[in-house]
Every structure is written in C-alpha cells, then in structure tokens.
C-alpha cells in the first residue's frame, strides 16, 4: 500500500465529515427560520384584526334643546354637553321595538363608550353641526367588533356566547342594512391606552418609548464613546484601569432589574425625580446600555489598523488629532452598530422600567420626557394581562409595532455601517 492509497482511503472519511457538518449547519438554519416563521405567523394572524376597526353608522339629531348648547357656545360649554343623548336617541330610532330598561341598556352598548367623545370632538371642530342631522360612523363596541371579525362564534348556543340573541339580532339587522362598516384602524395609532379595548391605542406607548430612547441615547452615546476612546487610546496600562475594565464587563452582566431598583432608590426617592417618567426610564436604561456601547466601541477602536495611527503621528499630529481625525471615523461603523444594538436592547427592556413606575395605566399621551408614560414592551405586558377578549389582538398588534421598530433600528444600523465603512 503506497501513500496515494492511504490518502485515498482517508479522503472518503474526510468528505463524509464535511458533508455531515454542512448538513447540520443547514438543519440548524432551517430550524431557526421555521421557528421565526412560526412566531411571526402566530403574531401576525392574531394581530391583524387590531388594525381593522368596526364602525356603526347612525344618523344623529344634534338639536340644541337636547344638547343644551347652540352654535355660538364656547368650547367649555360644548365640552360639558351630554353627547350620549343623540346617539342613544339614534339607536332607539333604529330599533323602536326596544322598550324595556334592561334591553335599552344592551342596545346602548352597540356603540363604544368612545362614541360620545368622537361626536363631541367633531362638534368642537365644527360648531356649525349643532342643530343639524348628521350621519356619522361611530366606533363600535368591542363585542360588536368581535362578532363582525368572527372572534365570537355566532353559531354557539346562547348560553356559551358572550353576545346574547337580542344583541346579535340587532347587529345582524345593522349588517343587513349596510350600517356596519369596517376600515383601517387609525385610532389605534392616534390614541393612548384605555380600559375599553376598542378605544385603546398605542401612540402613548410609542411616544413613551421614543422619549425614553432619546434620553438613553443622549446620555449613553457620548459618555460611552468618550470612555471607550479614553480606555483604548489614552489610559495608562495599570491595575486601576484593569479594575475599571473588569467592572465595565461586570456591569454588562448585571440583571437589568437591579438597575431599576437603583433608579427607584436614587433618582426617584433621593433626587425626587418624577415617577413613571421617560427621563428616569432613560437614565436607568442608559446605565444598562453604557457597558454594551463601551465594549462595542472599544473593540471597534481596537480593530482600527495601527498603521493609521502611526501615519497620523508620523506627520506630527497630536494624539488627540490622530484619534479624532482618523481612528474615530474608521471605528464609527462599529461604534454605531454597537450603539444601535444597545438601543434595541433598551427598546425591548421591561424589568427596570417596572421598578420606576412606568407600568402605570396612563391614558394621556406624553408631551415631554417628564410626563408619566409607558413604553412598548410594558404596553404589551399590560394588555396581555387584561381579561377582555379585544386586548388579545391589541397585544399581538403591539408586539408587531415593537418588532417593526426593532427591525427598523437594525436596518438603520446596517445602513450606517455600509455608509461609513471605508476600505483600506
């Protein structure tokens, strides 16, 4: 047996190993994609009803006597007028056979609690509507919504069905007369949280997240990049710096809820900063994000070829000039990627924000970083915790919005990386 034969024999084994490895790699990728698809399909199928709003079309009589206001009334008076009356009258008009008190109450619940505010806002916008008759599409109650979207099965026996026969009959009558319509749910993106599923929107949480992330970015990015530059380029190599390095790495591994406790004890209790506010949330999250950005920035700076520094120093650039003119621009793609990964982490973070009160039920849309607000992941948590059926779809919809922002941020990271990347 000569060498060629020995090599030939071993070749078979080697190729088999290579094939085996390739197959395993493919399998793991396929599994990962399958799970991802499963997750996305599940969320998407559950979420799509939330983006569709069911509306009930009613002709309301806005007469001055019922409302107690006229076209000349000021906003204050319009605000306090009773807009429930015309809607109820319109419903009774459509179903004159309803007379009993209990039945009436059922009938009134065809439209959402928000319908009267919808009408009020329209009148405030245009006081000339007072004294006229208007055909308006009112927001439907979540039960009506559920029946129309099929989440409540009409064929179930009455005892097992949340919407009883009377109400179902009315809904079907309205459906038959074309008074029930559906359309894109703009309200979901324009409103804050609510106890009523059909009225609940995500705008408050989106803005809350935005403000929180702005504070986080404004605090953590400059501090982290400065720290990374100092540690990598200027710091003397001694035990104290080693100690700091170890602690930065440790900080990255601290459970996030601990940062929440710190925020509660230091910022809220000691410095008396506002509770539930994005400013505190942002500070807490920037503590959490700092080590991530520092570590990413340091490795990006370390990866800059030393020849670039030497070139600058050899021309008589000072240390500072060589760092800021050459090293930093070259490290920027890595620094930005690290920053956005840190931000994406902060966007999805829930635990520390629970501790500083961002878990409160907040209807108002925050106007600044000091207003009480909540954030997207906590909105998901809050809705997932609500018993009403309508919140199920809202939960999935909120997850979709959260995922959308995460994907958008990652896309930005990739774009920036490509844009600033220079080859040498």
């Amino acid at each position, binding site marked *: 047996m000569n060498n060629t034969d020995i090599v030939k024999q071993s070749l078979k084994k080697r190729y088999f190993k290579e094939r085996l490895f390739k197959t395993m790699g493919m399998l793991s990728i396929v599994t990962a994609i399958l799970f991802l698809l499963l997750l996305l399909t599940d969320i998407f199928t559950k979420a799509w009803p939330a983006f569709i709003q069911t509306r009930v079309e009613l002709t309301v009589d806005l007469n001055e006597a019922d409302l107690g206001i006229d076209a000349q009334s000021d906003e204050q008076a319009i605000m306090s007028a009773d807009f429930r009356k015309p809607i109820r009258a319109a419903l009774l008009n459509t179903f004159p056979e309803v007379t009993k008190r209990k039945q009436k109450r059922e009938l009134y619940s065809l439209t959402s609690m928000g319908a009267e505010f919808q009408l009020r806002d329209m009148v405030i916008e245009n006081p000339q509507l007072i004294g006229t008759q208007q055909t308006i599409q009112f927001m439907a109650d979540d039960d009506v919504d559920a029946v129309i979207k099929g989440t409540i099965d009409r064929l179930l026996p009455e005892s097992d069905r949340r919407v009883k026969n009377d109400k179902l009959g009315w809904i079907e009558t309205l459906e038959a007369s074309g008074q029930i319509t559906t359309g894109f749910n703009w309200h979901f993106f324009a409103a804050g949280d609510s106890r009523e599923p059909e009225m609940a929107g995500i705008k408050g949480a989106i803005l809350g997240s935005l403000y929180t992330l702005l504070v986080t970015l404004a605090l953590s990015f400059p501090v982290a990049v400065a720290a990374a530059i100092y540690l990598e380029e200027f710091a*003397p*190599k001694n035990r104290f710096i080693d100690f700091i390095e170890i602690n930065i790495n440790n900080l990255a591994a601290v459970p996030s809820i601990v940062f929440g406790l710190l925020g509660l004890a230091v910022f809220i209790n000691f410095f008396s900063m506002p509770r539930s506010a994005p400013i505190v949330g942002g500070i807490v999250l920037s503590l959490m994000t700092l080590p991530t950005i520092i570590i990413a920035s340091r490795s990006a700076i370390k990866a800059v*070829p030393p*020849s*670039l*520094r*030497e*070139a*600058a*120093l*050899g*021309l*008589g*650039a*000072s240390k500072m*000039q060589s760092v800021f*003119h*050459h090293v930093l*621009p*070259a490290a920027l793609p890595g620094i930005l990627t690290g920053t956005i990964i840190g931000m994406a982490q902060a966007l999805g973070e829930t635990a520390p924000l629970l501790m500083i009160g961002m878990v409160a039920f907040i209807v108002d849309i925050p106007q600044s970083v000091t207003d009480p607000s909540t954030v997207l992941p906590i909105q998901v948590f809050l809705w997932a915790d609500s018993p009403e059926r309508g919140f199920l779809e809202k939960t999935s919809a909120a997850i979709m919005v959260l995922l959308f922002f995460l994907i958008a941020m990652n896309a930005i990271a990739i774009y920036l990386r490509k844009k600033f990347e*220079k*080859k*040498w």
Partner: protein
Amino acid sequence: MNEAVLNGLNEPTMKVQSNRETEDSLNIEYTDTVGQPLCDDPKISTRNVDVFYADNQAIHDVSLDIGAHQVIALIGPSGCGKSTYLRTLNRMNDTIDICRVKGQILLDGHDIYQKKQDPVLLRARVGMVFQKPNPFPKSIYDNVAYGPRIHGLTRNKAELDDLVEDSLIKAGLFQEVKDRLHAPGTGLSGGQQQRLCIARTIAVQPEVILMDEPASALDPIATAKIEELINELKENFTIVIVTHSMQQAARVSQRTAYFHMGRLIEVGETDQIFTNPSHELTEKYITGRFG
C-alpha cells in the same frame, strides 16, 4: 527651522543649551563600532543609545552621526534593531508603553529626548514613511493636505492647493493623479500609495525623512521609482532608510550602517562597505552567508 510649524503649534523656540557636555561626548572613542560612525556636519547625532522593551534590550550602545543632505542606509539581518533605532529618531517609540530609550539623540545639537521637547513638533521636523503604504482612507488631495492643515502651514486654499501640487510633483506622482485628486488615496496601486505617503510626508516640509523599508512591499518597477525619488529628495532632505535589500542600499545611499543583534557593527561610505568591509560580520552579511 520651519517657522510655520513653530507658530502653528504655539511652541516656544527652543533654547540653545550649553554645548559643553555635547562637545565632550563627541570625543568619546567607540571601540566596538568600526569604520566612521561620526561625521563633521551631523544633522542628527546619536550617542550611546540603548533601547529596552520592558527588560529586553533591543539596541546596545549605538553611536552614529547622520550627515545633512545625504542618504544613510541601515542594513542588517531581521531583528537586528535597525527599525527600532530608526523609530527612536522621531520618538515613534513613545507610543509603545514598555519602550525606554537611554543615551543622547541630538537633532541640530538639541536633545530630542529632553523633557521640553514636544514629540509633535519633533515629528513635524522628522517625517516618516512606513514599510506598508498607509494612506488615510481619504482623497489623494486630503492625504497630502492633512499635515499642512493640522500644522496651519498655509494661509488659504490657493496656497494649500499649490503645496499639495508641489508635494505630489516632488514625489513624482502628480502626472499620474492630477485628474483624480479627489479620488480615494486607497484606490491607488501599492507603489503609487507609497509615493503618496512620501508626498504626504514632504508636504509638512520636514528636515529629515525616516524611511522604514519603504519598498519592501512593492514590485521592482515601483521600487525603482521610489529609489529614483530618494535620489532626488536628498537635495532637500536628510534621509535615513532602513532596507533589507543590499542592492537598494548600494543604489541609494552615500553611507551605510550595518547593525547586528542590536549593535552597530560597522559604518562607512557605501562603496567601501560593499566592496571592502572591515568587520568580519559585515563581510559575512553582504556576501550572503547569513541574514
């Protein structure tokens, strides 16, 4: 002395210190280096230089003069300390934490390792070209303009344009790149990149240029161009070149210094070193018996 460099960095002009000690040190006998390590009109003179990396001594007691407006080649086998020695001349070794330099290095009679000496100012006077072409990832124009800009050597755009053009002409690159001054410098060929680095160095108008194996990463044609360039540059600059190629040393230099194991073995006129070396080690090296 380049006044603009001084003004740009707000550096006080260097004081002339007492030369007594310097004069004394010039008269020391160096028994371990053969040939003529000293010369009459030195631009840089080094005396008893030791360089340590932590506890490792890389350079032992090197005393060598570098004459003005001439090219001196430093040759020797790998790891002999010639690059380390070169980097002591503009204090590039300062960037290495564990590196210590002992002895005296005088540029125009002033100790460059004294506390008052600003390394930034020194490097504006003693420029450096590296082994691997390392243009900045910027345009050709910006590469050359970088040094003048940071030092504030020019007063306006027109002056800067002239300086850039002039430096590129001196580096023999202008004809090749004049139509694409704003194209990235990293897009040039290796030889062009190295000439760009030379242009970048001479744009600062240094007095001395240190070259650390400037042609070792280039093909023979690019190498020939660099060598030609070195010959032209010696009119205006003092050049110290480290090279692995003895032919190159023979072609470009007037004096040659042979290093071995961190010691300076022999210094002499290039012709003499290559035709009639005095030291056994030098002879063995140039005849290719090791290295």
